[in-house]
């Protein structure tokens, strides 16, 4: 145990003291999030119009002309509704973008042309927080309306007749559709873990190439202890990396993490172990770094493209799907996605975990069998 802990510490120290390695490991995924996020992230897939529900509790000429104006706004697909709670739920589920509630005293407050209105109307606007432009459009529409009714009459000085009460609404992730960045993040976490694991073949090959493994092999240390120390080290790095990705995506692009952090950590640990073991198998059979690289890529590319990390597996041809569904990548990516969106069930996680454990055991057996100090 002593030897194991010291080896893990050794890898961590080497990692921390090797600034280039430290930097690269975190730099790539971060650069990916920032790039992807700023290019496509905060926009929803292009929609023809924003669906807006208008709950008019007033139904007098002032409010009716206001509603008519809203309906003419080109980006709105506005409709009337009387069921306020229903529309608010729909908004929360992402089926529409805003709910405008016009209060009973609206027409009275706005007044008629040439006439000052009485009182103050409180207009409630609930809108999807990721679409602040809806809020602005509504403000413009309101200004236009008040100018129509009041501004023509020079004798009446303008005064605020309508108080706007904005309510930004955070959508439920489990329901409605997602922005590209929302779906991208879990895929990115999965890809980072997969590559972190697979590319661990390279440092193992390097340690073999420069003779450190041979040196360790001259001591009684069991091969399994060495391999376990490498796996543990990578699992720690994978957890740090995932935490960082989730944090950056949350701070810069407001990606909400809806799931259970413990479940995510569990999947990350299991996934990192599985892919680390795959990396160890490659690292066990090659003698040099030069030989390790192409072999890693040979495994990396198919897993990346077939594993549902970049695009859904449903887009793949029929005949290849049974094969793909066995791959560890898709199961890890699915599990991470489910957890991130808060859609994970015990059954779905257990099924994905079972596949990963299967690959993990196969990797363990194979790498311990194939591993050579020299």
């Amino acid at each position, binding site marked *: 145990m002593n030897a194991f802990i*010291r080896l893990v510490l050794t890898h961590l120290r080497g990692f921390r003291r090797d600034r280039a390695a430290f930097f690269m490991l975190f730099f790539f995924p971060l650069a990916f999030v920032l790039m992807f996020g700023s290019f496509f992230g905060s926009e929803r897939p292009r929609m023809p119009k924003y669906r807006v529900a208008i709950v008019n509790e007033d139904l007098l000429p002032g409010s009716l002309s206001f509603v008519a104006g809203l309906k003419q706004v080109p980006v709105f697909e506005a409709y009337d509704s009387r069921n306020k709670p229903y529309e608010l739920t729909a908004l929360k589920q992402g089926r529409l973008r805003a709910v405008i509630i016009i209060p009973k005293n609206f027409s009275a407050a706005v007044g008629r042309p040439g006439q000052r209105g009485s009182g103050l109307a409180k207009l409630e606007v609930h809108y999807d927080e990721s679409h602040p432009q809806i809020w602005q459009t509504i403000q413009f529409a309101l200004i236009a309306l008040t100018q129509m009714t009041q501004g023509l009459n020079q004798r009446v000085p303008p005064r605020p007749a309508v108080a706007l009460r904005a309510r930004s609404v955070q959508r439920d992730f489990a329901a409605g559709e997602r922005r590209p960045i929302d779906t991208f993040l879990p895929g990115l976490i999965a890809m980072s873990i997969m590559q972190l694991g697979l590319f661990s073949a390279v440092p193992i090959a390097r340690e073999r190439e420069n003779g450190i493994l041979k040196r360790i092999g001259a001591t*009684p240390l069991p091969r399994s202890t060495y391999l376990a120390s490498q796996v543990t080290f990578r699992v720690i790095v994978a957890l740090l990396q995932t935490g960082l990705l989730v944090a950056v995506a949350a701070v810069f692009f407001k990606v909400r993490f809806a799931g259970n952090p413990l479940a995510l950590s569990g999947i990350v640990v299991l996934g990192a172990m599985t892919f680390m073991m795959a990396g160890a198998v490659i690292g066990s059979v090659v003698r040099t770094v030069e030989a390790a690289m192409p072999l890693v890529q040979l495994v990396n590319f198919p897993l990346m493209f077939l594993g549902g990390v970049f695009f859904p597996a449903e887009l793949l041809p029929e005949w290849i799907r049974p094969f793909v569904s066995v791959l560890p990548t898709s199961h890890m990516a699915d599990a991470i996605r489910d957890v991130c969106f808060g859609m994970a069930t015990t059954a779905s996680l257990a099924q994905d975990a079972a596949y990963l454990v299967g690959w993990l055991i196969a990797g363990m057996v194979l790498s311990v069998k194939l591993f050579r100090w020299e």
Partner: protein
Amino acid sequence: MPVISVDNLRKSYNGTAAVDGISFSVERGEVFGLLGPNGAGKTTTVEIVEGLREADSGAVSVLDFDVRSQRRDLKERIGVQLQKNALYPNLTVRETLDLFAGFFRNSQPSIGIIERLGLSDKADSVVKTLSGGQAQRLSVGLALVNDPDLVFLDEPTTGLDPQARRGLWDVVEEMKRSGKTVLLTTHYMEEAERLCDRLVVVDHGKIIAEGSPRNLVDEHFKERAIEFEVRAELSADELGALPDVTRQQQQNGQMTLYSTNPHQTLRALLELGTQRGVELAEIHIRRATLEDVFLKLTGRRIRE
């Protein structure tokens, strides 16, 4: 009971014999040397004895362990320094020793080893900042973390400057004083002469001579060596015919005459030179060394 006994060891790579029937035994408490040029099969032999390599045939027993079936137990009890000095570049000296100490059931504290290696002021420096000599001393120090009775040193001073080399010789002599058995390979004659109690000279995977450094020289040379610069005016035949000369060697512009009576030979040589009007530069007489033994046995110098 010898600490190491090797009997008719053979190992070949792709049909070429690297070790071709080597036998020797090492007694407790002695420094035993394998001396020979690069590629003679020294490292292969040592690594088989350490349990790092499989022999094709032959019997090896180390500390009464069978190197094939009791590898773990053997590694627990021996100290190994490999020819290639491979260390984690980002660990400090102390961390490196502690790491390796953790690989053994029994180990000694790193601080004592650091002192013995003379690395106290470098204890907390990372390995990549060490000089070649310091890194090599650390590499030898790794062979001591489990306080072994038997230590293997594979070319411990190769590539070091003379001062660093002498520093390492002190470390080896200290091991010997503390009662450890040392198996050492080297292609430095001075090193073998200074450190080894007994040695075998290895060439092309075979042992070509065996004994203590002093006995080996005496056995092959009753003579002294007279060395001087080669001059065209003096033919090899003439020099060979000088009184009491038994053999002559010419290599790299240097002539060596082996003489049973150097006084007589030298006088005749100087007379011959005066007759020809040649002044012989850099002339000197020395005892024969292991280098001369190797030259006599193989016709080559050990490092070329």
